[in-house]
Structure formats: structure tokens, C-alpha cells
């Protein structure tokens, strides 16, 4: 192992420790840990692996010159005297550099392994070295050490399993090494799609059978039992036979697997809670967010067909609003007003749980809701002093709005999501074909909307103006509303026949569609067909790198409202709605 390679491993390990929740499994996957103090240490099982994995990569014949002129690959070299202190002074660990340099402060430049390039030894490993030297530093004659890599599951093992059989000899060696180092496999990583084709020959008695014995272990994944490790060891010892017919597919790993598990839980909860099955069951309702006094109201929107976009004759019309095309929409409820800070801050600040439930219920917070990721704290104050109680929430990314929907779904047992752009326009038009849902004359706009002419430079409380024909308030003006779609000015051009529930799925972070116009906008931006795409400038003043995936520093005009489709989709589709955004820039 070259010096640079050791460095790479350390970097990779650190990156993962930082980003991966399965770090416990990664950090403590060594069999020797913990066994140290109880019985005398054994050179082969306890000491040799530590030296081979941490020291020999530099202290070997090739690299000794630039590493203190010290080799630790043979007994003769390892015990050579050096200055006042011995490298290894049998019986005196505190006088032995090989031990005491491992327990120096990390800032000490003599610390070994070098802190700049390698991870320090664990306390247990240091203790093994101490005890070994204290017990006389037994090193059987003739034993030579070689570099041994520290195997990591995600870097070293997962690619082998994903590649599948037949397994090459170096890969077999890596598997063997991994198992000998404890076979650590992070929880949450598995190959659930592992399928064994029928008709595979079964291995003879006494032999491990790949399909029968190994595949179930791979399908189960992380957190291997001792029995499973034993099975894998035997299988590797017998040649790691892997029939070419068996493919595992990509591992369902780490964070994404956890997210999907959570969505499946929420999905089950929703199926148990949502009673409405038919259009006839759809009534307007007001719901209290469990555990709080905060309510939100939902209005039923019947299924139907409409003409999306604007005619070329519409005043101030933009080219991206055409051609007009017929769209069919399934039934849903839509939130009567846009989401307020009262609602949104419950999601932002999960630690604000009341001591006793305000609504008298006992199960005031579904555990699934607790498991939904929450926004990091915004650096600046995100209402920009425009008011909180009863005012619309703003400055959230589309991703944050999506995850709010997931959180509220988990809290309430209803399936909520953002509307598609088509659903939004359908609900906004409410059966009308004019520029605004009240007609074509912007002079009436002040009765229905807050916009540049009447907003006094800020957003206003929700629900104060007249609603649209279907009972939706502030559907235009006040704050723009997130939809699920990627903005594409040419998106409408592909539709010649009636299209059902179109959704332009996102492939990049910008632009995403917002609709409705805001308190900052002039009248023409509030037209039912007017479209707007998000830009990177909406995060311009985020001083951090990477920029927040939750907050927009420069979009004091963007909010959202939620919908609840009558038809509850399968869990996989829920996952797609709630993770529709491509927020990572």
C-alpha cells in the first residue's frame, strides 16, 4: 500500500463517516476490539493485523528512508535500538515509540499513524499494543509482515456483490479479508431484488449452495449475524462459487433505503386512515394538525377536463403558454389558502413538541412523522419581517415543500403532495377560460388578489380577498405557489390529443415551475396561464457552500399550497412525488 493510497482510504472513510448514518457499523467492525485487556494478547490475531493495517504501508523496505528510517516488517528491523527510547522495548511500553506515539495528542507531530494522512488507532488498538509490549513483545521468529488493507464494505465489497458472479480471484481475496476483519456490513444496505432463477443445480451435500445459503443473506443485508458470517466464510473458503445467472441488481443502500422504508410505513398508515373511496365521499374538511391547535382547510376539486394554456389572442400572453391543449384531471382536495407560517413552523421546529397534546389525544404525533427529515435552521430570518401569524410561509425550496407534504401525510394519515402544474391551472381556472378566473379585466384584480398595486411591498394575511369560483383563496397573487413540474417553455408543444395528468418530471435543480404570481408582481403575472421558472438567483445570498437545500434567501415571494388526491397511490409513487425535486446543485 503506497502512502497516497493510505490517504485515499482515510479520506473515503471520513467522507462516509460524515455523510452516512451507518457509521457505527463502519467504525467498529473489528473482531479484536474489546477483547484486549481480558487475556494475554496473541501476536497473530491481535497485534499483527494492527501493524499490517496501519504501519507497514510506510515502514517497509521501500519507504523506510523517508519514514524515520524505520521498518516494522521484520522482527529484526522492528526491534532495532534507536536513540534513547527504543522503538520496541519489551516490558516497557512507555519507553516504546511503537506504543507511546500512538497515544500522543493528535496535534503532536510525532503522533502515529500521522494524523495528516491516516486515522488514529482506536483506544482498544492502542491498548493491544501497550499490553503486547508489557507482556514482553512476543514476535515469533521468521514472521514477516506485509501491507494489509482495511476492507470497507461500501468501497470494497458492495461493488463485488453488485457485479455478481463468477467472482475473480482478487475479489475472492478481498471477501476473505473482509470476513477476517469482522465482516462489517452497514445496516440499511441490502439486495432485496436478489432473485434466484428456477432450475439452478443444487450443490452437493456439505457444500455451501449459493442460491440456498448465500442469496438469503445478501437479500437480508446489513447487520450480519455470526451464523451468516460463518456461512459466508465457508462459501468463500469453498471458492465463492457464484452462478453467472444470478444477478443482484443495485444495492438498496444507506439513506435512500431508509427513506423508502419510511414512505412504506407512511403508506400503510394512510391506507388505514383514509376512508374516502368515491367522489361522493369528497366533502370540504378542516383538519387540526395533531398535537397542535393549528388547522388547515381543504376544498374538494371534482375530476374534469380543461383547456390548458392561453389563446394567442390573450393580452400580455407569453409564448410558453401555448399551444392550448386539453388536459384530464383526477379528483383531489386542494388547500383553501396557501400554507401559513403557523402550519409550516410546526414542520421546521420538531423540538417544539407540547408536553401534553393540545387536542386531548394521546397519540399526538405519529412516530413516522418524527422520522421525516426536517429543514436545517435558516441562517437569516425567513419571513423578512413581513409577519408570521396568519401569513403565508415563504422562502422554502421545492424540496422543503415536498418534504412538508410527506411530514403532514405522516402526521395525519392523508396523502398530501404538491399539485402538478396542470392540476394547479385546472383548480385556478375553476372552469373559466378567461385571463383571470373573474374575467379579462385587470381592473377587478384588487377584489381577488394582493399584487404590486395594493400589497404595500409585502405579503398579506391569507384568505382576506374574494375566492375563485371553486372556493380557493389567494389562488393568484400574494405568494407564488410551487408545483411539481420542471419548467420547460416548450412543454405544451408535444400534446395534440387530450392528455391525462401530465407531469414534467425534474431532471435538474432549475428551473422548477411556480404559479399564481405574488405581491411583487404586476397584473399580467397573475393570469391563470402565466408560468414562471425558478432560478439559481433565488439562493443568491446564501453565503454557504454548499447552499441550503431547504431555504431560498432571495425568493420572498414563493410559497405553496397542498393537494390531497382522492386516489391513494402505491408507496413507490408517493416516494417519487415527495422526492420529485433535484435539489442538489
Amino acid at each position, binding site marked *: 500500500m503506497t502512502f497516497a493510497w493510505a*490517504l485515499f482510504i482515510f479520506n473515503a472513510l471520513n467522507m462516509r463517516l*460524515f455523510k452516512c448514518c451507518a457509521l457505527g457499523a463502519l467504525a467498529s467492525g473489528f473482531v479484536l476490539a474489546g477483547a484486549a485487556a481480558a487475556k494475554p494478547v496473541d501476536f497473530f490475531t491481535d497485534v499483527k493485523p494492527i501493524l499490517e493495517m496501519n504501519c507497514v504501508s510506510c515502514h517497509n523496505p521501500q519507504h523506510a528512508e523517508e519514514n524515520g528510517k524505520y521498518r516494522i516488517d521484520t522482527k529484526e528491523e522492528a526491534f532495532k535500538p534507536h536513540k534513547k527510547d527504543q522503538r520496541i522495548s519489551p516490558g516497557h511500553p512507555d519507553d516504546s515509540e511503537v506504543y507511546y506515539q500512538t497515544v500522543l495528542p*493528535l496535534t503532536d507531530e510525532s503522533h502515529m499513524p500521522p494524523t495528516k494522512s491516516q486515522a488514529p488507532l482506536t483506544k482498544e488498538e492502542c491498548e493491544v499494543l501497550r499490553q503486547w509490549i508489557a507482556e514482553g513483545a512476543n514476535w515469533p521468529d521468521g514472521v514477516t509482515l506485509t501491507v494489509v488493507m482495511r476492507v470497507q464494505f461500501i468501497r470494497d465489497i458492495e461493488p463485488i456483490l453488485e457485479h455478481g458472479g463468477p467472482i475473480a480471484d482478487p475479489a475472492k481475496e478481498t471477501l476473505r479479508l473482509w470476513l477476517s476483519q469482522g465482516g462489517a456490513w452497514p445496516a440499511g444496505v441490502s439486495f432485496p431484488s436478489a432473485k434466484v432463477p428456477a432450475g439452478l443445480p443444487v450443490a452437493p451435500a456439505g457444500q455451501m449452495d449459493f442460491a440456498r445459503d448465500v442469496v438469503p443473506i445478501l437479500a437480508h443485508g446489513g447487520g450480519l449475524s455470526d451464523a451468516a458470517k460463518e456461512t459466508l466464510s465457508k462459501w468463500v473458503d469453498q471458492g465463492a462459487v457464484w452462478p453467472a445467472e444470478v444477478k443482484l441488481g443495485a444495492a438498496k443502500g444507506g439513506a435512500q433505503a431508509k427513506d423508502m422504508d419510511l414512505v412504506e410505513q407512511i403508506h400503510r398508515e394512510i391506507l388505514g386512515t383514509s376512508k374516502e373511496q368515491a367522489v361522493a365521499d369528497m366533502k370540504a374538511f378542516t383538519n387540526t394538525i395533531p398535537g397542535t391547535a393549528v388547522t388547515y382547510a381543504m376544498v374538494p376539486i371534482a375530476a374534469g377536463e380543461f383547456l390548458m394554456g392561453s389563446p394567442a389572442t390573450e393580452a400580455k400572453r407569453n409564448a410558453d403558454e401555448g399551444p392550448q391543449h386539453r388536459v384530464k384531471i383526477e379528483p383531489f382536495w386542494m388547500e383553501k389558502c396557501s400554507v401559513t407560517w403557523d402550519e409550516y413552523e410546526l414542520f421546521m421546529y420538531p423540538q417544539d413538541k407540547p408536553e401534553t397534546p393540545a387536542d386531548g389525544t394521546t397519540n399526538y404525533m405519529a412516530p413516522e412523522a418524527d422520522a421525516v427529515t426536517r429543514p436545517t*435552521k435558516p441562517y437569516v430570518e425567513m419571513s423578512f419581517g413581513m409577519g408570521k401569524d396568519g401569513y403565508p410561509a415563504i422562502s422554502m425550496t421545492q424540496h422543503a415543500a415536498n418534504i412538508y407534504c410527506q411530514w403532514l401525510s405522516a402526521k395525519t394519515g392523508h396523502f398530501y403532495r404538491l399539485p402538478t402544474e396542470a392540476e394547479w391551472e385546472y383548480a385556478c381556472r375553476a372552469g373559466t377560460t378567461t385571463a383571470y378566473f373573474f374575467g379579462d379585466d385587470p381592473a377587478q384584480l384588487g377584489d381577488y388578489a394582493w399584487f404590486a398595486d395594493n400589497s404595500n411591498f409585502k405579503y398579506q394575511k391569507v384568505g382576506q380577498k374574494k375566492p375563485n369560483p371553486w372556493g380557493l383563496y389567494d389562488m393568484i397573487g400574494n405568494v407564488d405557489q410551487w408545483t411539481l413540474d420542471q419548467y420547460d417553455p416548450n412543454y405544451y408543444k408535444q400534446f395534440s390529443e387530450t392528455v391525462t395528468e401530465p407531469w414534467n418530471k425534474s431532471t435538474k435543480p432549475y428551473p422548477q415551475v411556480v404559479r399564481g404570481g405574488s405581491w411583487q408582481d404586476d397584473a399580467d403575472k397573475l393570469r391563470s396561464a402565466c408560468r414562471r421558472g425558478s432560478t439559481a438567483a433565488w439562493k*443568491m445570498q446564501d453565503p454557504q457552500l454548499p447552499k441550503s437545500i431547504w431555504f431560498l434567501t432571495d425568493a420572498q415571494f414563493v410559497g405553496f399550497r397542498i393537494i390531497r388526491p382522492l386516489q391513494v397511490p402505491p408507496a413507490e409513487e408517493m416516494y417519487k412525488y415527495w422526492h420529485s425535486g433535484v435539489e442538489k446543485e
Partner: protein
Amino acid sequence: MNKQISTSPELTRRSFLKTTSTLAAAASLAPGVFAAGDDTLKVALIGCGGRGSGACGQALSTSGPLKLVAMADVFKDRLDSSYNDLKAAHADRVDVPEENKFIGFDAYQHAIALADVVILTTPPGFRPSHFEEAVRQNKNIFMEKPVAVDGPGIRKVLATAEEAKKKNLKVAVGLQRHHQKPYIETLKRLHDGAIGDIVAMRAYWNGSGVWVHPRKDLEQKLGRTPTEMEYQMYNWYYFVWLCGDHIVEQHIHNLDVINWVKQAHPVRAWGMGGRQVRKGIDNGEIFDHHYVEYEYPDGSRLSSQCRHIEGCWDSVSEHVQGTKGLCDVSGYRIKGENDWHFSADEGKDPYQQEHDDLFAAIRNDTPYAETLEYGAYSTMTAIMGRMATYCGKVVTWDDAINSQFDTFPTVLGWDAKTPTEPNASGRYPIPIPGKTKSF
């Protein structure tokens, strides 16, 4: 623009810039900063957190040849993720070989040595010593606000800034409102007398607070019990010697704007504060609210609020009242005889602008000394406010700036003693107004 400060002569000694634009005055030009024959500026990043990485990205987005050559942090994982983010965003301008990635408490010295321009973005407690080292090594500097957390720190920064000026080094301080077009336009009008004499001021940073990095997370990350020093460095916001309390770390922005409006700093302060809500095991020793009344040399007063409590009235803003009208400074709006509102297309990102201005000054060799113009004084204003809320008494500017109360540890190291230590239940001593000595 040239409005004289109308009060005590003491103030005329202050080096407040009387204009709102960057320095353009003639000055004796020192030799260029570039290595002969090459105008590529080499940049080093000291402190690789989210803001440091952001500032570095902005530096790398300025025009003219430059590259990032060295990085330093105490935490290797922070450095590595910062490197990866910067590399992804500015591949052709990031050239940091492994040997130029320095880890540890002395890492800054090595990284500074390799650069022409250094970005100092560690927690603010380190700023005075890092600034001193950068000037000792004759480097140009961008340093984040605040520039210190206590009196001894400020004195060191002021002395170092004078030294930097003598050496013709360019020094920027991350108070980006000074580079934000609408602020500049608003201040210009105030200084031109648009609302007459300014007789009352208000400033707020009321919000929900910032991140918390729990001890148990660090323990899980390390796989062992962290040392107290490791924990405090990891959760630095909640310790005065590192952060200065949020009045210093965040509210400085608003206090700085009022100083800018008044072209002066306060002479006295008194106030109150405490920990009412945010007192979890990982909330260290700082307050969650401060209210300070500051008196300026002309007798006018600033009432200043900052709060880190969720679910309350929030505002991050500055407002001033004059004899002829009102100004919502942060809203860029003047009401009164001279009604005015800033209206323009989307302005430029001030975080980018502050780097554009610094690098232009470096390349054109024009004077640049934001520490002396306002950085050090605005920092001191905020520190004085904290001193007032911690002790509950009147604090004068001279008391504050001459304070011998040094918060910094005598020795740095992962096993070194921290300036404050938890008791058996993991709690830290909290200042008690009326009893605590804070300056």
C-alpha cells in the same frame, strides 16, 4: 457625503469612513503583491466550514487569474468535504495537493505561508491570532465578521490592522452590507441629510437561532468520548471564547449598520439578557436574548434586540428616525419630506461583491482597510453589548475596549484545558447579571 460628525472631538479621531463608497483616496502605492512575472493570485482557506467554503467560492469567482492552493482546518472531515465542494464548483481554480491540506491548531500558519490572499473563516475567537499571523507573513486578507470576541482580541486586531496599513496589505471584513447596492444608496441619502439629524435608532436580529451540534453526535462520529476541547470546537456557537455569543456573531450586522448611519460608535451601553428557552444540554453558556440600549456621542440612542427563540416575532432589520422623516434602512425606504424607495433590478449578490471589490483593490493596488474603517469598531460595539447584558451594569466604550478579560485558552490542543468547563451534569456556568464580572 462629507457631513461632519457633530459631537465631541474624540470622535474625529475615529477612523470611520465618511463616505459610503470604497476608498478611492490617493495613497502612496507600495510595490505590487504578485510574484514577478505572474499575476496569478494564490489563495488559502483557513477554516473550512460552510461559510468558509462559501467565501472561498466567492473569491474563486472573482475575475483575473487565481487559484486555491492551500487549506487548513482542525477537523479533517470538514476540510475534505469543503475541498470536494470547491473542487466540484471550481475545478480549474482548485489546486490543493494533499501536502497543502493542513490539519490542526497550527495548520493556519502553514497554509498562510503558501498564499498571496488568505481567507480567515474559523470561529471568530481565533481571528485575532490568525489575522496577526497573516499580516506578519505579509498577506492580503478576507476575514469574516466578527473579528474578535473580547477586549484583548480587539486591541490585537486594531494593532495588527495598523501594521497591515503600513505594509499596504488589503484587508476586507465580511460585513457585506457595505457592498450591497441598496444599502449603499440608502446610506448615501441618510448622510446627505434626507431625514435630517438622526435622533433615534432601532436594530433587530430576532430569529429562531442556529444549528446545534450535540456531544453525542460527535461521540458517535469519533467512536469514543470526545475531549472537552474537541466538543467545544465542534459545537462552537455556544461558547463565548469561540463565538462571542449571538449578539456578537450575528447581531453585529445590524449594529454595524447603525454605526455606519451615525458615522460613530456608541460611548455607553446598558441592557439585559438571559437564557429563557434555549437551555438544552448542548446549548453551552450563551444567552438566548439580549436587549441593549446604546448611547451615541450626540446623545441619541439605539435600542437593540437580538433573540434566538423559536415562535416569536422575528425581524432582522434596522430603522432610524430623523428630524425630517423616517428610514427603514434594511427596507431601503425613506418616508418624510424626501420620500424615496430603492427600486432596481435584482441587485448583485453582496457576498460576491465584497470579494470582487477586495480582489480589484489587490490587483489595482488601491488602499483597502475595512478593519479600521468599521470591522473592528462594529465588533467592539457588539462585544460591549454582551458585556452589558452579562453584568447588568453600564459599560463605557473605554471600559470595554480596555477590558483585560481574556476569554482565550492559554494553551491550544485537543487535550488542553478549555476556558469554561462543564459540571458533573454537563452544564456550564451561566453569567448572572448583577454578579458576573464581564469586562
